[in-house]
């Protein structure tokens, strides 16, 4: 991420990353561009590209779950077809041009209001699960129902 300076470079980086994981960027280019501007603003003011749709504290340890793609992204795509910002969408949403709307916040409220309180431990339960079939790495509390990339069932995640 250190070399990324422009929204265009960030777009290429995120798009490659998304495709690699079996997801897509929202088809609405102006929507995506507005999110890229937000990510770049966060990169410039915090030093990391945290979620533009959530409030960062400026403390890396507290905000680490929000660095795009955030740790709620995969769970939200499985559940709603898009991430919280609607930057990333599922293959189904992308290919069938499904309308996406604002989804509920999956980030725990304690973390959203961490800024208020005396910075409780920011440790999260998310861990990396690896698909034994294709090597796909999934970040979440639990392994997915099926692999977003090759479709292997949950039991193949270790």
């Amino acid at each position, binding site marked *: 991420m250190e070399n990324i300076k422009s929204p265009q470079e960030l777009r290429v980086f995120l798009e490659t990353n998304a495709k690699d994981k079996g997801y897509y960027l929202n088809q609405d280019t102006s929507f995506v561009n507005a*999110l890229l501007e937000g990510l770049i*603003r966060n990169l410039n003011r915090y030093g990391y590209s945290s979620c533009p*749709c*959530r*409030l960062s504290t400026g403390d890396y340890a507290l905000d680490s779950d929000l660095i795009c793609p955030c740790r709620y992204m995969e769970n939200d795509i499985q559940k709603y077809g898009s991430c919280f910002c609607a930057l990333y969408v599922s293959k189904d949403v992308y290919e069938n041009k499904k309308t996406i709307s604002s989804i509920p916040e999956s*980030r725990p409220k304690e973390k959203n209001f961490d800024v*208020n309180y005396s910075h409780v431990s920011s440790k999260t339960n998310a861990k990396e699960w690896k698909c034994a079939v294709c090597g796909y790495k999934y970040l979440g509390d639990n392994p997915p129902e099926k692999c977003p990339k090759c479709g292997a069932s949950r039991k193949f995640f270790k």
Partner: protein
Amino acid sequence: MIKHVEGSNDKHSVFLYTLSTCVWCKKTKQFLLDMGIKYSYIDVDLLEGAQQNKVMSEISAVNPQGGFPTILIDKVKTVVGYQPEAIKEILQ
């Protein structure tokens, strides 16, 4: 800090807690503008320290889960996220 946007429809008080970077916030502001609704907003990420904490406490009182935009209508009704239909219904 608090910014006011004029509109021909001022029957309700409409207040938005937003982030300067959030696209659902931008869409909500645009929707209110298109509807000619008078509203006020505050970009919480542009605040600092105690001021930001104070505003975050206000948000947690009306929207315990958190999330932007948080829209407060007539000081009692809360809408979270980009929800044009819900806003329309309340403002009718």
